[in-house]
Structure formats: structure tokens, C-alpha cells
């Protein structure tokens, strides 16, 4: 008896093992790395043990002492891992512009035995406290600077959290914009996708196939083809403007591309299938006789829809909206191609830090902030939609 029970349990465990492994390897582990990346700050600490000691008593305003400079030279001479040095330089340069070239110059100087003991002879920038402060600030193994910077905050001299100066960074604006664009796109997807799904579910045969294909098409075409198509449609001399002008509906072309309108149109187009398909599949599960039943019971078709079809299909709308919103939040190439200057989304900032500057810490921090906000919104959404769709559960 117990053996059989154990057997069954083992079998169940074995069944979900691939899933557990998958989640562990492709979700939990990277997430852990991301969290670590965003707070870990040992690139400098590792390589500069002597400097760490020497800089301890420094008051951050006086010129660097000889001991500090000698210690740094010794540390740099001892550093033999090129990649680790690269990480350190990248870390320092992101705190203080100019470190790149300064370090390149300094590293090749300290390679020569005659250099020293003063670094100020190598480059006079070493006399500026700012470059030493950058080192001093990078000696704690853990930091919140990336997470703070992700939301436009920093620690001021007194160590308190304060806003970044105006015009220095716009992550907050871009975060808000990202969620706003995602929300607007979701709204339009519901607006267009719901009737579309109704129509598709109500149709049969070839009509249904055509409708489904039409909505899936954007998923099957490459980004470049799609972009070209939007361009042809939306530009000032494009088809839509041309048509409206020739109809006399407008007197000058509407700005439809390289602005928010273009972004919303394009993203709605691409993401529409993610809205239509869940609604469509939920609609298919609704017995066809419910609407006739409702009308035979005296409900006007509109009221029958509101009381029967709508609540029953809300599940599809809710999951569709979630899919569209979550996907939209991660978009950045489409907004970059059809949007204007003010339509950059947060993922493009993340992409900038990861693929362009290899600032993984900053990329991770932004990613975590994005994840946390998204999770909060998700919880709120589930709460709200849970309440309204209590009736929608079958």
C-alpha cells in the first residue's frame, strides 16, 4: 500500500521534473543572476585591495595622497586579468565619464617600471578628487546605486536618497510612458479584437479561415515587411492620407507616423492576434444555444449579450488583455521604427545598456524595476478582474 503510494508520488514527481527543471534553469536562475547583477558591485573591490585600504581615511575633497596613488599603481600592476580590468573600467566610467581613456593611458604607463609613485604625472586628471571618489564609491560589495538610478534616484553626498538633477535621466518618464502606451494599445486591442473575435466565432467555413488568417498575418510577416507596410500606409504621402485628401476629408496630411499615433497603430496591429485568439477560443466554448435561450426568455439581443455572452467571454478578454499588455511592455523595436522621439520605451533603454555599453548592472536594475512594477500591476489587475469576473467562471 505505502509502496504503491510512494510509487505514485515518485511518478508524479518524475512527471513534473522537466517542468521544474525548465522553470529553474530558464526562469529562476536568470532571475537570480539579474538580481545579483543589479546589486553586486565588486568589479573594483576585487582588483584594488591596496587602494581600498589607502583610500579609507581620505576626506573626498583633498587632493589624492601619495599613498593612494602608489597603492593604485601597485594594484594595477598586480591586475593580470584583462577581462576583470575591463569590468572595472566600465564600472568606473559609468560613474565618471573619462575613466576609459584615463585608464587606458594609465594602464599602459604603469606597465613601464619607471612609472610612479605619482599618477598625477601620468595624467593630470588623477589630481581631481572626482576620479578618486568614483573609486571610493565602488568599494562596497553591494550597492543600490543601479536600482536607484533605474528610477532616477541617487545617493547624495550625505548618503541620502535624492532625485537626479533635471535632464540627467528620464527613466521614470520612460517607465510611465511604457506602461501608458501598453495600456492604450491594450485598450484598442480590446476595442477592435472583441468584435473581431465575435465575428470570427460566429462565422463558419472559409470565412472563418480568412478572418483568422487575416488577424494572424502580422505574426507571420517579418518586422521589416510590416514596417514597410506601415510606412506605405501611414506616411504623409501614404495611402491613408492620400485617400483622405482625395476625399476632401482633410486639407493637410495627418501626422500618422513617427509619433504616438503611429506607435499605437502599429503595436495594435501586431498584438491584435494576442487579443483575438484567447477571446475567440473562449467564445467557441460557449454553447451556441445560450443566446437564443436568453432572447426566448425575453431579453433584447443587446441585453442578452450584456448578461450572457459578455460575462462568459470576459475570461478571454482578461487573458487577452494581460497577454497584450505584458507583451507591449517589452516592445521597443516597433516604437523605434514607427515612433517619434518621444515614444522610446523602457526596453530600448535596457537594450542600450546591455547590447551597447555592456553595463549589465544597469540593464539588470532596469529589468528588475520593470518586473516589479509589472508584477504589482498584475496583482492589482487580478484583484480587479477577479471581482468583476466572478460570474465569468464556469
Amino acid at each position: 500500500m505505502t509502496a504503491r503510494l510512494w510509487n505514485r508520488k515518485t511518478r508524479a514527481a518524475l512527471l513534473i521534473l522537466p517542468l521544474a527543471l525548465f522553470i529553474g534553469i530558464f526562469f529562476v536562475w536568470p532571475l537570480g543572476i539579474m538580481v545579483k547583477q543589479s546589486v553586486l558591485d565588486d568589479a573594483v573591490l576585487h582588483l584594488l585591495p591596496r587602494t581600498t585600504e589607502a583610500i579609507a581615511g581620505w576626506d573626498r575633497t583633498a587632493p589624492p595622497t601619495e599613498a593612494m596613488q602608489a597603492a593604485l599603481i601597485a594594484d594595477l600592476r598586480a591586475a593580470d586579468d584583462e577581462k576583470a580590468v575591463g569590468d572595472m573600467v566600465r564600472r568606473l566610467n559609468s560613474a565618471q565619464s573619462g575613466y576609459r581613456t584615463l585608464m587606458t593611458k594609465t594602464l599602459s604607463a604603469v606597465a613601464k617600471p619607471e612609472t610612479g609613485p605619482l599618477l598625477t604625472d601620468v595624467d593630470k586628471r588623477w589630481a581631481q578628487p572626482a576620479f578618486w571618489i568614483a573609486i571610493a564609491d565602488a568599494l562596497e560589495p553591494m550597492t543600490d546605486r543601479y536600482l536607484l538610478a533605474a528610477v532616477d534616484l541617487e545617493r547624495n553626498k550625505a548618503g541620502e536618497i535624492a532625485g537626479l538633477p533635471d535632464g540627467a535621466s528620464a527613466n521614470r518618464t520612460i517607465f510611465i510612458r511604457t506602461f501608458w502606451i501598453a495600456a492604450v494599445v491594450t485598450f484598442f486591442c480590446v476595442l477592435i479584437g472583441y468584435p473581431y473575435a465575435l465575428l470570427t466565432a460566429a462565422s463558419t467555413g472559409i470565412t472563418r479561415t480568412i478572418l483568422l488568417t487575416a488577424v494572424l498575418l502580422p505574426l507571420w510577416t517579418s518586422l521589416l515587411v510590416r514596417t514597410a507596410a506601415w510606412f506605405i500606409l501611414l506616411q504623409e504621402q501614404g495611402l491613408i492620407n492620400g485617400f483622405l485628401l482625395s476625399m476632401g476629408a482633410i486639407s493637410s496630411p495627418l501626422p500618422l507616423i513617427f509619433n504616438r499615433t503611429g506607435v499605437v497603430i502599429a503595436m495594435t496591429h501586431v498584438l491584435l492576434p494576442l487579443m483575438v485568439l484567447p477571446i475567440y477560443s473562449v467564445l467557441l466554448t460557449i454553447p451556441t444555444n445560450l443566446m437564443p435561450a436568453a432572447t426566448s426568455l425575453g431579453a433584447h439581443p443587446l441585453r442578452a449579450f450584456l448578461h450572457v455572452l459578455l460575462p462568459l467571454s470576459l475570461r478571454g478578454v482578461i487573458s487577452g488583455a494581460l497577454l497584450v499588455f505584458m507583451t507591449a511592455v517589452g516592445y521597443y523595436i516597433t516604437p523605434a521604427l514607427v515612433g517619434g522621439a518621444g515614444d522610446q520605451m523602457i526596453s530600448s533603454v535596457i537594450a542600450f545598456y546591455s547590447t551597447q555599453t555592456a553595463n549589465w548592472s544597469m540593464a539588470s536594475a532596469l529589468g528588475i524595476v520593470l518586473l516589479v512594477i509589472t508584477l504589482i500591476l498584475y496583482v492589482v489587475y487580478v484583484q480587479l478582474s477577479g471581482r468583476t469576473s466572478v460570474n465569468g467562471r464556469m
Partner: protein
Amino acid sequence: MTTKYALRRLGFVSAAVVAIATTPALARDLTIVGWGGATQDAQREAYFKPFAEKEGTKVLEDSWDGGYGVLQSKVSAGTPNWDLVQVEAEELVLGCADGIYEKLDWEQIGPKEDFLDESVSDCGVGALTSSTGLAYDSEKWPDGPKSWADFWDLKKYPGKRALRKGPKYTIEFALLADGVKREELYEVMSTPEGIDRAFKKLEELGPNLIWWEAGAQPIQLLASGEVAMTASYNGRIANVNKKEGKKFVFVWPGNVTATDSWVILKGSENKAAAMKAIAFMSQPEPEVKMAELITYGLPSKKAAAMVPAEISKDLPTDPKNLAEAVPLNIEFWIDNNESLTKRFNAWLAAR
């Protein structure tokens, strides 16, 4: 219907995965990575195919859009799946300092004096020199703009303008338009006031300024008439004129030149073959062929001397063009790209 399709695809993919997993690892052929488009087409004809023929080997190709992080993560992941990569100047300097490229064997390539200064480094040899500058459609403006100051002249040349999204080039062009001399450009840019001045200049264009990100976009924008003028790469302009009979003009005064290089990723399993390929591509003959296919500047001085005049006049490295150019200051951008991009994004967001 779609589920079935998806399932079938899933089956196919898992079969493929199993096949890959069970096949013993085969040696990968030399993989060369360029920037795609017309340029890589030209490179294929001028370099890759002749090299493969000569060596009797196979060459695999891939393309990318730049980004130092891409290379860094490829190398730190272990054995990279790319060998020979065309990188921009900053990526060359950064990666060389970080040790993510193999050091080159110049014995195989030739005497360093035979190459332009920008084309010579421990980790890379020049691949091509390109110019970024003002471009317009001469069918629209018979008497077109001649300088960056004209780019800002909304009265004389009404219409939208496009620049590459990001601070690089944009700040240079704004300051040139504002009257900064070419020789003093990076001096001005090194001061906070200079940067403020550039952003203020950008404000002047107001809503008439739009941004592109992919190199193909400015051509599209010009062709459709969406913009009156744009910043663009010289090679793209020449290419579309040749292929599609356009009458676009690339304005040489105030162009910014930058040199791309070939590098070998650290830990490449085809290091020797990659070195051979670099040596081959640095010979004058293939380079001349390259110039015939696409108008980018040649790293080899010997090759430059062999290019016929009517081609040479369109190359960024032509002495006449070079005289009006600003070489991109790599060091400046290595130091300042991250902070200026942050500021640029903030500025865009606030508009």
C-alpha cells in the same frame, strides 16, 4: 488548425534539438560577421568568395547591428560562435582594452605603414571607412543644402529633417551648424557648455526633427519625400543612386568619418583561418574590387592609389573629401557615450 500546426512545429523542433544534441560536435567553418545589406553583399563578392576559393575552405556569414555588449557576452560565454567580426572604432578600442579580441599577427598582414593610421591597431585592421553626412534629393532641391547650417535653415529648405537617434553624430552636427570650427569641435564638446549648446541648437528644429535608427531608414525617408534632408551613410546614398537611379546627393563638407575594423574574437576556434582571411582582405587587389562595388574608404594606401579617379571621388578617404571631414573622436565617445546617451534620452523624453 493552428494548434495542429504548432504541435507539428513543436515536434519538428524537438526532433531537431535531439538531432543536434546527439550529433557529435562538428568543427564550425570560419564565420565572418558583417553589418549586412549592400555592404556585406559587396564584401561577399570582393572578399569572402575569393578567399574561400583561394583557400579551398568554406566561409559562413552572419550579420549584426553592432553593440559592444553583444561581443562581450559572446566571448564571456566561452567559445564564441563568431570568429571574424567587423566592429566600429569604439568597439575596437574597448574590446582591445578588455581583452575580448585576439592580438593580430601583423607579419601576415603587411607593413603597418601601408595602412591608414585608423586602420592599424593591436587587435584589428581596418575594414572600411565610412562617412556620415547630410544627404538630400536633388530632384527636390536643385540648389540643395551645402552645410549643416543649411540643415538648420527651415526658411530656405522647409520640411522635416532626420538624424540618427542618439547623441553620437547628432551633437557634432548641431555644433557644426552652430558655427563651431571642425578643428575645435571636440574641444567644445568636452565642456558642459558645449553640450548644452548642442542641445539648444537641436531645440531650434522643434517638431521638424525626426529620428531614425536603422541605416535603411534615411533612404526610405528621402525616397518617400517624408523628409527634406537627413543624415545618412555615404555608401547607402551612392548605392541607392546606382541601383535605383535616384538623384540623391551626399554633402561632403562636414561629414564625419569613422573606420570599422576586422577583429578576431578571443577564443575563436578558427583563429588561424580568421587571421588568413584578414590578411587576404588587406591586400590591395580585393580592396580595389570592394571600392568598385560600394563607395567606402579603403584601409590600404596601396589600394587607394590603384582605385580609378571616378570611383575615388566618391570615397570618404579621397583626399578632397577627407579635407572637409571630421574624423569621429573615438576617445571622446568611449568616455562619454553612456552619460550623453542618458542625457539624450532625458532630453527626448522631456520634449
